[in-house]
């Protein structure tokens, strides 16, 4: 039988609001444990939550960017479960009335556009962090557990997709696309390694063509896009092998092990876990008036999908439009500035996605503070085009510019990289080389074309490589034919 994988993805995004979801503590990654805490985020007796308005604006912008509807009225619920790093032993979350619902995200898979439905985006609070001592950091047999509540109460948005994803690759692309969209909105720093964006996948299989959903398995602990793709692929394989051998998939949560490349069962879910959800009585319902929603919508930046379309309309192929679109904002501004200053879009994109990215990586510089602007890049490109510098010398010019040595022209001058275009200097060198190689002229005249290459080389050598080879070539031919 042919099996069709059915995948839904839940994404948790920590917002980078100034303060936490329900108290005034500062939101920041890491730091001395338990220094950014207060009675509320420690769950001390008597402390109460107060909703952070900025977090609600952030989730609204995520929802709107995903084409969601924003609920006019939304309420918080308590999700009750006991866990040492959950200070109140309930999480303030949302249940049946999320802030945002019913949206979509278009992704491109093998050159084809696929629309993945978004069921909801809801608001909740993050937990603290447990560190298990000894026993390789595993909870069982740990000698002790340390708790850090700095993260407790950080605003968390959960984006739940519909089960519209059909392959491990699609799962990865969806996650990447969602991450870049949220990065664009500037509401989270979406760092996988710091856990500010986290992915869980729900995987099931069904006979191809069937429209009933199979039993789903939730997989957790994927900390990169690659591990998400591998974990989903592995889980699909595991289920197919299991079912083909006459087994049955059970509803459970499985843990992805990056090292061994397999998933392990964590716990079997009895139906849906009983979190005893009920309306959070410490908070009043939120009201998202249409004027407020409109205000948030107006503030949305250009989003990746429309930006890629714009780049393609400027003549970039889909591939480079995609790569350019995924660059950091300041890099894209350089592109826009260069094009505005008259640079050909393709050349500007190539320089940025190639040389500039390479240089930044090599020098470990932050793309956010790149010392390059659009007109400067345009100047460099035009110097290559008019032959002022060779394309290889231009890379050196770029290095000088990025190192803060000045404009492309002054770097080329200082580093002595300008191609010799002064015809008197060139002519003298050409005349000298021709005079020293009378046999070569004869060979050329008898049809030996390849000798031109040798002569160009001689001229380049005489000018220490600063001559424009194309000009030299032309000049040699003119002289020898004359």
């Amino acid at each position: 039988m042919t099996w069709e994988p059915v995948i839904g993805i839940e994404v948790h995004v920590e917002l980078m609001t100034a303060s936490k979801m329900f108290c005034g503590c500062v939101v920041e990654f890491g730091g001395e444990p338990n220094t950014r805490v207060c009675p509320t985020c420690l769950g001390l007796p008597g402390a109460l939550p107060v909703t952070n308005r900025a977090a609600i604006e952030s989730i609204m912008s995520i929802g709107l960017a995903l084409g969601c509807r924003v609920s006019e009225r939304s309420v918080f619920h308590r999700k009750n479960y006991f866990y040492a790093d959950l200070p109140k032993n309930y999480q303030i979350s949302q249940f049946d009335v999320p802030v945002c619902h019913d949206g979509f995200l278009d992704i491109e898979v093998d050159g084809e556009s696929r629309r993945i439905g978004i069921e909801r985006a809801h608001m909740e609070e993050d937990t603290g962090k447990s560190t298990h001592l000894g026993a390789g950091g595993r909870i069982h047999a740990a000698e002790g557990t340390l708790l850090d509540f700095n993260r407790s109460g950080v605003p968390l948005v959960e984006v739940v997709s519909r089960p519209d994803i059909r392959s491990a690759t699609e799962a990865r692309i969806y996650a990447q696309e969602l991450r870049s969209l949220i990065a664009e909105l500037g509401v989270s720093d979406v760092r996988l390694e710091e856990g500010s964006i986290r992915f869980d996948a729900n995987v099931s299989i069904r006979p191809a063509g069937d429209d009933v959903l199979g039993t789903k398995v939730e997989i957790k602990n994927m900390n990169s896009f690659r591990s998400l793709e591998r974990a989903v692929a592995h889980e699909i394989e595991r289920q197919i092998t299991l079912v083909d051998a006459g087994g049955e998939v059970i509803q459970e949560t499985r843990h992805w092990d990056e090292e061994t490349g397999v998933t392990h069962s964590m716990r079997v879910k009895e139906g849906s876990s009983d979190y005893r959800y009920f309306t959070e009585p410490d908070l009043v319902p939120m009201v998202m008036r249409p004027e407020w929603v409109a205000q948030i919508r107006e503030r949305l930046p250009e989003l990746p999908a429309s930006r890629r379309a714009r780049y393609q309309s400027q003549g970039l192929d889909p591939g480079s439009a995609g790569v350019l679109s995924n660059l950091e904002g300041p890099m894209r501004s350089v592109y826009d500035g260069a094009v505005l200053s008259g640079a050909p879009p393709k050349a500007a994109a190539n320089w940025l996605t190639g040389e500039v990215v390479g240089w930044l990586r090599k020098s470990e510089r932050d793309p956010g503070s790149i010392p390059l602007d659009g007109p400067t890049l345009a100047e460099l490109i035009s110097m290559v085009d008019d032959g002022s510098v060779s394309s290889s010398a231009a890379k050196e010019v770029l290095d000088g510019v990025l190192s803060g040595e000045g404009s492309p022209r002054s770097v080329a001058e200082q580093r002595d990289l300008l191609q010799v275009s002064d015809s008197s200097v060139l002519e003298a060198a050409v005349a000298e080389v021709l005079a020293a190689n009378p046999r070569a002229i004869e060979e050329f005249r008898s049809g030996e074309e390849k000798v031109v290459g040798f002569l160009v080389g001689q001229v380049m050598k005489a000018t220490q490589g600063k001559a424009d080879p194309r000009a030299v070539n032309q000049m040699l031919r003119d002289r020898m034919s004359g």
Partner: protein
Amino acid sequence: MIAPSLSEAGRLLRSGETSAVALLEAVLETASRTEAQLHAFLTIDTEGAREAARQADAAMVDGIDRGPLHGIPVALKDNMCTRGVETTAASQILAGYVPPYDATVVSRLRSGGAVIVGKTNLDEFAMGSSTENSAYGTTYNPWDLDRVPGGSSGGSAAAVAVGSALLALGSDTGGSIRQPASLCGVVGMKPTYGTVSRYGLIAFASSLDQIGPFTRTVEDSALALSSIWGHDPLDSTSYPGAYPDPTAALERGVDGIKIGVVTELSGEGFEPAVEAATVDMVARLEKAGVEVIEVSLPTFDIALSAYYLIAPAEASSNLARFDGVRYGLRVDGATTEELMARTRAEGFGPEVTRRILLGTYSLSAGYYDAFYGQAQRVRAAIQEDFSRAYGQVDVLVSPTSPTVAFEAGARTADPMAMYLSDICNIPSNLAGHPAISVPVGLDEAGLPIGFQVMAPALGEEVMYQVAAEVERLAGFSHSPSLSGTRS
């Protein structure tokens, strides 16, 4: 006692006839004379109180007058967080817990110049109607030491009754201020939900909990309320609009006021003396100019059932944080789960455990709709019943408690009998409305009887207007005898 009421004490303070220090010392003296028999307090902060009293006097000398509570000795139910002073909610699970912050009401008391004497006893986590559920021993009724003071704010009620504080704060989730006030012969008032901040009040049932004052007089109650209530940005359920003036109509009389006598709050289960005192007071009010209307609120009969689903459900979640991980009692275990389970098994008393189990059950998948969901619908129906009644009348009246103070131990084995103590009080909590208990007389055994006045949300002005008239008509001037076989 230097002054019988806080308003009188305030007058003496301002005329220089007494000082905050002298008021405090008198109160401390009363406490040291009565505590062995009453056990109203869990903590008396003698040093902190003396310092606060000195500062209150110094401020007064400097011409700074912080208002009606300036220099007044106040007691707090031990479920309100006080920075640096142990706060236990009368539970073993919070033994030794010292909060790092003040509840908003406590901050308001401090900035109002009040002198905090100490923390009073209560039923563990405010769950109970007799103060017998305290992990630190029962409080007794100053009118008869063999009887209970009511609860859960029994310590606060008893302290004000004997004068070991001129004002005490309690919390009322389902009658926990009004019922002990009634049983101890003092004035106890539950404000409109959301008007006194809950920030720093150790939660029992968040949607019902409300802090309010115990005082000797209705005027004191209105003065205290005006000092502690008001919008608090730290409590999202805090009312942000304009507040009425509780003192505005105290002297206005009741001419033209319409009162509704609630049919459902009489009959079976109500002691004859209590019914007689209620009927008598209604008759006197009528003579004083009110129009009396008999009103029926049929949902009152199911209010208790709804309450015992909603309050335990919220409590089961509110009390989840007491797990031994971060503060309070910890009983170690091999795993985190075991540590939590053992701590909670040992740290919570039987009534708290019963309510957590009840609440957990009623929120469980498959039962939610039949229990918690249904109870919320009943709650909405009670609110509608009230609205209908307030379409006809300005206030509703009833006995505060169906009985006078009962004997210690009499109801501990029968939770249902204990729960029925609050039958007259619970509807106001479910609706979020204000209500007050005023002492109107004694039964033949010399035990006080309370009269309850209920008003619609933010109806404190008319509620106090009627309560003040009730007080004048009753002329209640008895003092507790501290008698009984335990004396």
